[in-house]
Each structure stands twice: as structure tokens, then as C-alpha cells.
């Protein structure tokens, strides 16, 4: 089974945002949201001795994804290939996984009211195409592949060139998005965008947020059922009349 990973070469990334837009286009992400973000670190140091770097952020497809357990409906799951996905038909949009993600990689799609995030462009890789962000990257800075394949670019970058992942002693879910670059650069990125401690739902919140969508769904279903019955009756009535 494959072990997928993404590597950004920070030396080559110029922060051009092509990845963000290509991803938005591929997945029809509503305007104002994104599955792939380009973040810029603050400029650090004192003029003229300065450093700055970009960080392309997305779902890290962690080895131990903190988003899976809080999902009450089983929509968020990890495949055998390591890719963390959201089954849209099961998602109830409660947002627990959004809070649980240490990398702020998830959002609730305001159109579908369901959670969305990077899935390493599963449908593209299935077709033999690279993920949209990798395909378009103007700086040729993004790499995708299988860490179990010793010949892959990502294997070499991670195990031979020392690409690092962003996690801390506290929060170490084993992310599979890596960053390659000068030590000063990767350290700056790691310091600027540390993973946050997953926010787990409090007991009360758990039920209120979980129950609300279910109640809405239930009420909706009831209403819909009644409406359908009503119209059916209406049609039936008309039919009768016509007959």
C-alpha cells in the first residue's frame, strides 16, 4: 500500500498562489475559501539582515489524524493509502473535525454545508494525473508521491535531503506534508505556523452542535415528508377530478 506525501521545496517556492487557484478551480471551492493556502512568514531580523519564507499549507494527511475520532458520523476517515478523506454523504457539517485539525486545513463549505479539505486530489491521482497544485506549480516546488517508493522524488527529499515536517513535542500527529529548505527557512516556517493543540468538543457543546444539524435534518425531513404527502394528495385529487 502506498504512503502518500507532499513536499514543498521552500527554496523554489515563490509564493505565486498558482496552487491555491488551481485547487480552487479543480474543486470548485467557494470564493473566499481554500483547500491549499500559501502563507508568508513575517520578515524577521533587522534591515538588511532578514529572512522570510512561504509555507504552502493544506491537509497533512497525518499518520494519526486528530480529525477522525471527533467525527460523530464517520464521514472523516483515513484510507489504507494514508489519505484522509471526508465522505460527503455522511458529513453532517458539525465542524468538530475543523476544530480538531492542528493545521487549520478544513473548512465548512457554505454551499454544501459540509466539510471540505485537500484529499491529495484523489480523483486526479486515480486518473494518473498529479494533484492540481503540483501540476501547475510555476516554481516546480511541489512534489507528490509515495514514501514507500525509494525511487520517488518525495522519498529522496524526505529521507536523503532531510525535508522536515511541522509538528511539536505537544502536537505530533505525524503529518505527511514536508518542507525542504535551508535550516533558517524551515525553522522560520515551523516557528511561524506551529500546529495548534486540537480543540476537542466540550460535553455540552458536543451534543448541541451534534444535535442541531440532526434536529434540522429531522425537522426538514418531517416537513419535506408532509409536503410531499400534501402534493401527492393534491395531485391525486386533481387526477381524480380529471378522471
Amino acid at each position: 500500500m502506498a504512503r502518500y506525501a507532499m513536499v514543498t521545496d521552500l527554496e523554489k517556492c515563490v509564493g505565486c498562489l498558482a496552487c491555491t487557484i488551481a485547487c480552487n478551480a479543480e474543486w470548485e471551492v467557494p470564493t473566499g475559501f481554500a483547500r491549499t493556502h500559501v502563507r508568508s512568514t513575517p520578515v524577521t531580523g533587522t534591515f538588511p539582515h532578514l529572512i522570510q519564507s512561504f509555507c504552502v499549507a493544506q491537509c497533512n494527511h497525518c499518520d494519526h489524524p486528530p480529525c477522525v475520532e471527533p467525527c460523530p458520523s464517520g464521514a472523516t476517515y483515513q484510507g489504507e493509502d494514508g489519505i484522509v478523506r471526508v465522505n460527503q454523504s455522511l458529513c453532517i457539517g458539525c465542524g468538530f473535525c475543523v476544530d480538531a485539525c492542528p493545521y487549520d486545513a478544513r473548512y465548512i463549505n457554505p454551499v454544501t454545508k459540509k466539510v471540505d479539505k485537500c484529499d491529495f486530489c484523489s480523483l486526479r491521482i486515480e486518473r494518473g494525473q498529479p494533484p492540481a497544485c503540483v501540476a501547475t506549480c510555476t516554481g516546480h516546488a511541489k512534489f507528490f508521491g509515495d514514501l514507500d517508493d525509494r525511487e520517488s522524488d518525495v522519498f529522496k527529499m524526505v529521507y536523503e535531503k532531510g525535508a522536515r515536517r511541522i509538528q511539536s513535542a505537544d502536537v505530533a500527529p505525524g503529518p505527511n506534508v514536508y518542507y525542504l529548505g535551508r535550516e533558517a527557512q524551515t525553522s522560520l516556517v515551523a516557528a511561524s505556523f506551529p500546529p495548534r493543540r486540537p480543540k476537542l468538543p466540550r460535553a455540552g457543546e458536543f451534543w448541541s452542535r451534534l444535535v442541531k444539524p440532526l434536529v434540522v435534518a429531522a425537522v426538514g425531513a418531517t416537513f419535506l415528508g408532509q409536503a410531499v404527502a400534501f402534493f401527492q394528495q393534491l395531485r391525486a385529487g386533481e387526477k381524480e377530478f380529471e378522471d
Partner: protein
Amino acid sequence: MRNDLSRRRFLRGTAVAGVGAGGASAASHSPAAPPGWHGATRTRTVATNCEMCFWRCGVLADVAEGKVGKLEGNPDHPLTRGRLCARGNAGIKLLYDGDRLKTPLLRTGTRGEGKFRPISWEQALDLFAARLRDIKEKYGAESVAFFPHGVAATFFSTLMKAFGTPNSAEPAFAQCRGPREVGYALTFGQGLGSPEPVDLAEAKMIVLIGSHIGENVFTSQVTAFSEGLSKGAKLVVVDPRLSTAAAKADWWLPIRPGTDIALLLAWMHVLIAEDLYDKEYIARYAQGFPDLAAHVREFSPEWAETITELPARQIRETARAMAAARPAVALHPGRHVTWYGDDSQRARAMAILTALLGAWGRKGGIFLPTAVTRGKFALPPFPESKRGRADGAGTRFPLASEEQGVTNGLIEATVTGKPYPIKGWIVYGQNVLESIPQRAKTLKAISQLDFMAVVDVMPMDQINYADLVLPEATYLERYDMPAIVESAKQPYISIRQPAVEPLYDSKPGWWIAQEMARRLGLEAWFPWKDPDEHLAKIVEPMGINPDALRARGSAEFPGRPYIEDRLPSDGPLFPTASGKIELSSPILKQLGFDPLPRYTPVPNPPPGYFRLLYGRVPVQSFARSENNEWLDALMPENVLWINASVARDHGLKDGAEVILENTDGARCLPIRVKVTEGIRPDSVFMAHGYGSRSRALHRAFRKGASDTDLITRVQVDPLMGGTGMRVNFVRIINGALRNGD
């Protein structure tokens, strides 16, 4: 074709097969996938050229049910190989922008008021022809001026020449690349062309003088830049601001703005004084070396330090590093280089330095173009103008391009009526109010016109001043003159062809130009009935099948990029009068200019003022793309970079709103500050392409600030008429105080 593309495997080994085999695989996941463009309903894929800027990258438009669903880079395109920038990826949002110009419009209100009524194409084209005839009868054909932008303007250029006016000018020359074309042509006998042939991918050292690659994105240039860096090229970035490129540099030289020529002279001084230049190359190919050596003797790094505020030690160190990397030194000639009015001379200095490093025509330096023969229709000769050009190209500005013209020269002529009146303006795809400085002067010129017509896709500010507005179809809906690019290692032809039918009542430019020609009795210059016939003629001598070209989008030809590859049929290596690289320029001497570049002192900002610098962000092209839904969402406003010490002095925190006022009292719209150590304390910086004044651009209207509002002064380059625009000083007015200020 699509299948062929998909077969380009990117994953090694069995990775892809592995996905399908798993239980929780992507395949089994598909039915519950989020919405998105998955190509399931794709009916066809059209290979075409992008026009979100003028680099003309290769695009594949996936079409389903009559709509473009997604744009992808075309992996077969010789220049861009499947990559697209943010703007290229967002092209759909230009195609489906509800603010597009939808129908021909006739002005009903006063100029600038923005009141129009829709008219038919028949009426619009008849009116256009009648008005042009009026001007021709009353003042002569030359009294119509043409303001084009981009290759798509070719058909209109033909129309204007056939009509009898030589007065055509685009900002690509006098507001952009003109000085470098002139400076390099004076030195090497030929300019650079676009895309500029800089061998970034093979360089051992890359030198950027103000070029902010990464923020200024041309896809293949970014790819080559990062390839060069990843292969170990050293990087020198000369920029008053910590640009994206500067943050990657081995040496960032935050130079005092306007003093680049001093730095370049000092670099030459070190190369010659320390005997580090390419002696063999200079002896073989160049003339004027003794004059150059004598000229730069006094320009030591210590001399330059006092001017540039860069340490002499650093100047020496970088010069030596260049020498160690030569000839593989890619000294980028820049693109927008109209800065201080001595810009052609700065380009000369860069060209001379390139020659000293032996880098012209060498791997890792500047490579050579290879000519591509194209088919041409036998057209009648264009009528000759007895009165000549009105913009000063070839006369007042002796080295200005007569093909590209001097926009500001045409505006000046329109205002003054000298050398003769200009009474009609035809604007195509150019944003004359944002791309040309001194807006007040441009507006004054417009107010004196009898007729102004604008052909555009979007309702830019300028349409409000036009008598007639003609809606052009977007690049995804039209055929254009193919791009024939010689300044690539593999020269190529790539085409633009419609992916979908034009929306609304918009029409392709070729059709508009042809219909205008028909009404003006100029059909003889358009002897083709449709794009197919046009394309067939152009590719005739290339030995390629037009259908195959349409399917693949492009075709490449063998290139001879380096000196050792050249054939006698390529012509002389250095097509100067002497046949050699002219280090000291006989042409400049003859014209009464400095034959060798010289540093002219630049003033410091007056107390309390800062030098206004401007540049690019990756989501904007010129002032054309600001209304794009996706791009707007990523960077809805520009920000003003100010040094942290300046922020302290002004009591400003990051994100505070300010306005700027220049020394002439001109102000911009409010803009938020970005407080950073990454800019010199004597300068401020903002991105160009914001602060639109067009109400018809619903997303872009009044978002951010326009640098053009503050560019009321220019320093004109006496060689070629370019407008140096970094000569304006601004003070910062704290937003909270500004009402009472």
C-alpha cells in the same frame, strides 16, 4: 489527445496502481466526493494560448456542455510545459465575469459620466467608419492615433496602417521594456524581445536588478529561475525592498533607489582592475574596450559606496563571484525598466557588464533567438505619411521604436496639437488611464478629441470617456494572430483558438477589424475570409499541418541558442554597424549622448517624504485583472510597505489605513500599511493594478490605491522617450487624521 496527456506518468513505480487496489480507495470514494471539476462530462479539450498576461502560456480548456469547466497548463507547450500561474488558472473568471462588456455602447452623457446606450454592431461599425472618415477629411489620416496592447492587436494595427496613420503607441515601450531594448540593441546590435532570452535554468549566477521574479510572475521564467537556484546558482538581488527573490538571495543589495548605474560601473571597475573579465571574448567580439577601461577607472567600489549606500566590500565580493561564474551569469535585463529617465543608459551598463562576463550567446547567460519563417499574405503597400509620426519616435526621441511608438509622445501631441492635431483615439486592450502616468494630462488630451473608441473585454475606467465602446470576446472565445516566438531556446508557434462561442454580443478582434476595414474600403489588407485561412497561410512555409497544430496547440522548431550552435544563415552574431559588440557606442556619440554610461546624481526625498516605488503581485497583470473573482478574493487590496522605523515615527501599526500625498498635492485612495524591515526607510512600495475608478467593475471599484494617482511627474528618457516614473515623492497621512488634515 487528452488520453495522451494523462498517460504522462508522474508517479514512479506502482504508486498509481496502488490507489485503485485499496479498499478505501479513491475509486470507491468517488460517489461521495465533494463538488468539483472532475472532467466526467468533458466533451472536448481545446489547446490555446493564455492571455491573462502577454507571456502566452499554453492552456488546455476543458469544455463540457458549452462551458469551460477548467483550465490546465498544456504539458506539450514548449515554453510552459503544463504550468500556469494564478492568473492563468483564474482565466475562467474572466470568461464568466458578469461585469464584462456585453454589447456595443454609444456614449449618451458627458465624457467621464459613464452614460451609454446599447447599439447594434451594424450601427457601431458604421458609426466608427463614419467618424474616422470625418477626421481623415478634416485633418488627415494621421490625426487618428492608435493605442494597442499585446499581440492580439495585430489585426487592428494592420487596419490603422492601411487607414494611413503611423501613430500607434503601446505602453510596452515607453512605460516598460523600451529602454532595455534600446540599450541592448546599441550594444549587441539586437534587442531581447519577449519572452526575454535569459538562461536562468543553466546559470551559475543570477543577477536581478529590480526584477522581482516571483511577485512578477511569468510562468516559464519562474520555473527557469527556480530550476537555476535548485541546481546551485548563486543569486544577487539589487532591490530597495526585500522582494520574494531577494529573500532567496545569497546577496541582497538594498541599494539607494536610482543609483544602479553607479553600482554597475563599480562592478565593471572591479572586473577590469582585477583582470577578471572575459579577455578572450572581449578581444574576439568587442570594440571600444580601451575607452571603457579608461572610463570606469575612477568608479571604484569605494566611490560607489558613497552613492549607493552599499558596502564597497560587498560590491567587490559580488563582482568577484560573477567573475567566478562567468560566462554562465544570467544578468536579467529587467522588464518594466522606465524608472529614472536614464534608463537606456542603465540598460547599456547592464549590457556592457554582460559582455565583460562573456555571457551574451553563452550557456547560462543570454541565449540567442532563432528565426522562424512565417507565411505572409501579399498585401498592398501601406500608404505613406507625409507628415510623419506625431509622437517623436525617430525624431525628438531618436532611438524610439517606430513599431511600438511613444504613448506619452502621442498624448503630448494630442494636448498641444503639435506637430499636428490628433483628433481621434482608438484604444485596444490598453488601460490608458492606469498604464500611462500623468493621468490629468491623458484626460486633458481625451477632452480635446473629436472621437474616441475603445475595444476591450472589461469596462475599464477609460470606457467612460469613450464615444464608442466595442465589446471584444475574451481570449477563450476567439482566434488571434498566432504567437511565433523566436526568443526561446526552441523557437515555436503556438495558437489561440476559441474554446467556446463568444458570450453576450461580444465579437473576436479579427472580426471587428475586418468589418471596420470593409466599411473603410480597406478590404485589400484583409485578404482572408476566416481564421482557418489566415492560419493556413501563416504556417505554410513551416511544414506543419494546421489541423495537427490546432490539436496540439503548438509546434517547435530547432533552436541554435548559443554561439557555437550558430549557422551562417543565422546572420551576423552582432548585427551592429561594426559587426562587434559596441562597448563604447558610436551611435550615441554621433547623436550627442554619452557613448559610455555615466551616473547622474538622483535627489534624496525631501524631509518627511519617501520615494514611491511600485511593482507587481502575482495575482495582477498590469491594470487588467483586478476584477477577477478568484484573484480579487486572494488579494482584494494592495498594501503599502513601510519600514518599521517609519511606522514608529508615524505612530502606525501594521494594517493601519493611510493615504499618500505627493509633492504636487496629488493623493491616492486609502491604503493599509504593511510594517516591515524589508524595505529601505527612504522608500515606500505598493503593488500596481489597484484602486480602480470604474464603477462598472463591481469587485475592483475603489479597492486599494493606484500608484498612477501619485505619478504626476516623470523623467523622460531623451534617447527613446520612456517615462521614468520612480521620481515621485510622497508623504504619509495617517488615516485617522486625514479628515482634519
